[in-house]
């Protein structure tokens, strides 16, 4: 009887709830939802529309012409293809080896998914990721790792991300491990190591431009002493790229350093003390205790820096304007360059391609990491 009563009563109670109470949760959430829509979703949709349009300033205002995928066609298959993809030629031996390794690894991942009878969604996801990854690797092999090839903005961007993050992480880790030791002056160096991060990237660009000037810069005597007064790093594609990468590493290593230092210092001391008592070496302690302890922080750190690094623009813009030729031009700089000439649709299309690229690598990174952690567990 009571069960029946309650089953009857519940809707009755609900029906009696005042309208204001029922609407209250939605009313409280609405401002936040609107803010998110306004600052995040709406610009995303608008820029997608822009990437499918051509804009022109005419008498009476702005004329927006819908051109469907024409801006993407121009980038991927049209007159801008060479800027984006560079010059593709037959890869060198190293290029073929790299490509073969990636093909093997991705094929193995797809095969494992099929063998383990994973869901169709997982298999399809892995297959798509494999195709995209093989395609990108081929592009790297046929442009960057080819004697006749030349990398376009897409590969140059990926190069900056890969080299920059690897070097920044390793350097940051070494510096953090050093500063975590009880060494004299470590407090001083903690501050010193942080300084580059405080400088605006444009300032870093000008700083490195002056330092690398072999004729007029403050290091001119050094370059002359080294017999490099007639060398112009800006004339050489790799010289210019390396200059950009050094500037980027110099600026962002402190970010890695400070977060890793915090993670190292926050790890529990008991396992380390126990390991010392058991006679473990410093390397063993680092390998089996410290590294696993800072792994969650490291993965997040790399993910954040990776997303940020894909958007690099300041340094190549100030140092070389993307030159010589297109040697140091990134996708963001490329988008900015054509935006300055009012090709807003084309610029938005590049921005969307970059968004796809960043999302792909971020998802891939997270998936690989998750499967690795699951396997370890």
């Amino acid at each position, binding site marked *: 009887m009571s069960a029946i009563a309650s089953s009857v009563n519940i809707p009755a109670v609900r029906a009696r709830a005042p309208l204001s109470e029922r609407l209250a949760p939605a009313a409280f959430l609405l401002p936040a939802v609107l803010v998110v829509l306004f600052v995040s979703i709406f610009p995303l949709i608008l820029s997608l529309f822009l990437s499918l349009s*051509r804009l*022109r*300033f*005419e*008498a*009476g*205002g*702005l004329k927006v012409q819908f051109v469907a995928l024409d801006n993407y066609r*121009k980038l991927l298959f*049209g*007159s801008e293809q*060479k*800027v984006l993809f560079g*010059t593709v030629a037959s890869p060198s031996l190293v290029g073929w080896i790299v490509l073969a390794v990636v093909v093997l690894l991705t094929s193995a991942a797809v095969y494992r998914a099929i063998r383990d009878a994973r869901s169709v969604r997982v298999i399809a996801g892995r297959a798509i990721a494999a195709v995209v990854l093989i395609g990108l690797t081929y592009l790297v092999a046929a442009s960057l790792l080819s004697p006749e090839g*030349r990398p376009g903005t897409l590969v140059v961007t990926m190069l900056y991300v890969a080299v920059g993050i690897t070097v920044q992480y390793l350097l940051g880790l070494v510096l953090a491990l050093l500063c975590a030791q009880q060494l004299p002056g470590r407090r001083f160096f903690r501050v010193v190591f942080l300084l580059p991060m405080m400088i605006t990237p444009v300032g870093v660009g000008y700083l490195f431009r002056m330092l690398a*000037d*072999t*004729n007029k810069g403050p290091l001119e005597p050094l370059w002359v002493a080294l017999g490099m007064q*007639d*060398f*112009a790093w*800006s*004339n050489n*594609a790799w010289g210019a790229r390396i200059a950009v990468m050094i500037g980027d590493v110099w600026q962002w290593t402190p970010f890695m350093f400070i977060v890793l230092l915090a993670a190292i210092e926050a790890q529990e001391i008991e396992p380390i003390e126990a390991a010392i008592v058991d006679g473990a070496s410093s390397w063993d302690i680092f390998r089996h205790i410290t590294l696993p302890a800072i792994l969650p922080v490291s993965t997040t750190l790399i993910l954040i820096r990776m997303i940020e690094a894909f958007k690099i623009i300041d340094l190549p813009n100030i140092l*070389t*304007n*993307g*030159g*010589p*030729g*297109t*040697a140091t031009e990134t996708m963001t700089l490329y988008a900015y*360059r*054509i*935006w*300055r*000439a*009012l*090709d807003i649709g084309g610029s938005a299309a590049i921005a969307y391609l970059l968004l796809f690229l960043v999302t792909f690598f971020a998802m891939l990174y997270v998936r690989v990491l998750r499967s690795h952690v699951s396997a370890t567990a």
Partner: protein
Amino acid sequence: MNLKKLTTLMALGAVVLAACAAPPAAAPAQPAQPTQPAEPAKKFAGITVNAITFSGPQIAEPMQRRGKEFSEMTGATINVVTVPFADLYQKILNDFATGTNSFDVIVFAPQWMVDYIEPGYLEDLTDRVKADPDIQWDDIGLFFRDFSATYNGRIYTIPLDGDFQMVYYRTDIAKELGLQPPKTWDDYIAFAKAVSEKQLTTDDGKPVYGSCIAKKKAAQSYWMITSIASAFIQSQGTGQGAFFDLETFKPLYNNEAFARALEIYKETTQYGPPDEINLDVGDTRGLWTAGQCALTIDWGDIGTLAIEEGSKVKDKTGAVILPGSKQVLDRKTGKLTDCTPELCPHAIDGVNHAPFAAFGGWSGAINKASKPEVKDAAFAYLSYMNQPAQSNVDVTIGKTGFNPYRVSQFKNLDNWIKAGMSEQAAKDYLGAIEASLNSPNMVLDLRIPQNQYYQGIVLDGAIAKFLAGEQDIAATMKEIEDGWEQKTEELGRDKQLAAYKATLGVQK
């Protein structure tokens, strides 16, 4: 707290606040103070004019200096905002198009004016100019009045500068090596090569380069290649045009003539500073005044910078009209052909010169959306800078970036000699500009819708890749042709052709 209490408290608070804010009810009477005689109200007191130009320091410097003088005279406040050259076009357009209207005065490249006038962003200045006798409009060179200031018969800008590219050479080095000023581009190469092989050094031991040309990407370098190519492409007079075919609007930058220009352009790099492809005009000018260059291509700025304090090339700087060519493009065959009287009617001693009015000269315009009183002050400010009393001085100062554009500035040598030029140097310098200005085969800069994309993106990008060795001549020319054609298709071929033809009707 109930409603009654809350109401009482709020009323009490309001009374307290009102008491604090109110002025004393009855201030004691003060004895009358003797007052200073009031200054006559200045014409534009309290008005602020916001201006934008590029972060020179050229152009911005005279705008700020003259702005201060103008403020003292009229009471108006002149704020000059500067942005990098590559950002200027879009920054102005974005400001206008979004209705932000942060800028009342824009000082910009007149070749961009079509993109600002067509949407209706610029104030028509025709009546104001006619009503202003101090501006002495007829004293401004006809070309600058027409190309830099007028669009569809209406005046939209006030010229502040006159721009032509010329070749400068070191007179002392020419004398020492027994070289003549270059008449053709082959002469230019021979001159540069001779200096380079001689391995000359400055007094402080720095190398003297055979040729210094600003070739930096995404800067002000893309005019240089047109300065070289024009002599090979245009020979039948200004109306022929040097960028597009007048029938089909097909680009003229994919043929033997432009290929030859690219060869010359690349060869000059061999005799230049090691980092030449990363040098902007500011850098090459610095090298010139430091005595490290024997040749350069530049606007009129070099002539006045050479006489500035600290310059090592005072009275050593000669100027000539842009070199020409004995071979030109035969547009019927698309081949590079020897000059004949029919093919090169304006040739001098068999050499076809095609001086390039690159850029056209910095000019000032007024935002149509500004308030009427601000527009009045803005026009008065531009007029003040343009008037002979100011401009005749400013064009003789190197750091202003202003070059002569008034007839009186060419006729009267006194200002130049007073500024530090020798009479011969002044005659050389002004003579080279006049020869360019009076040439019946002068090449007009591109002034069609979105010319910034054609030149600043497509041409500049392709040339940068060519200089960096990323692509050969054929690929470079194809890239320019494809890029220009694509933009033409987007904007409409007929419309672009009509705009191009209208520009070529400009009077000189």
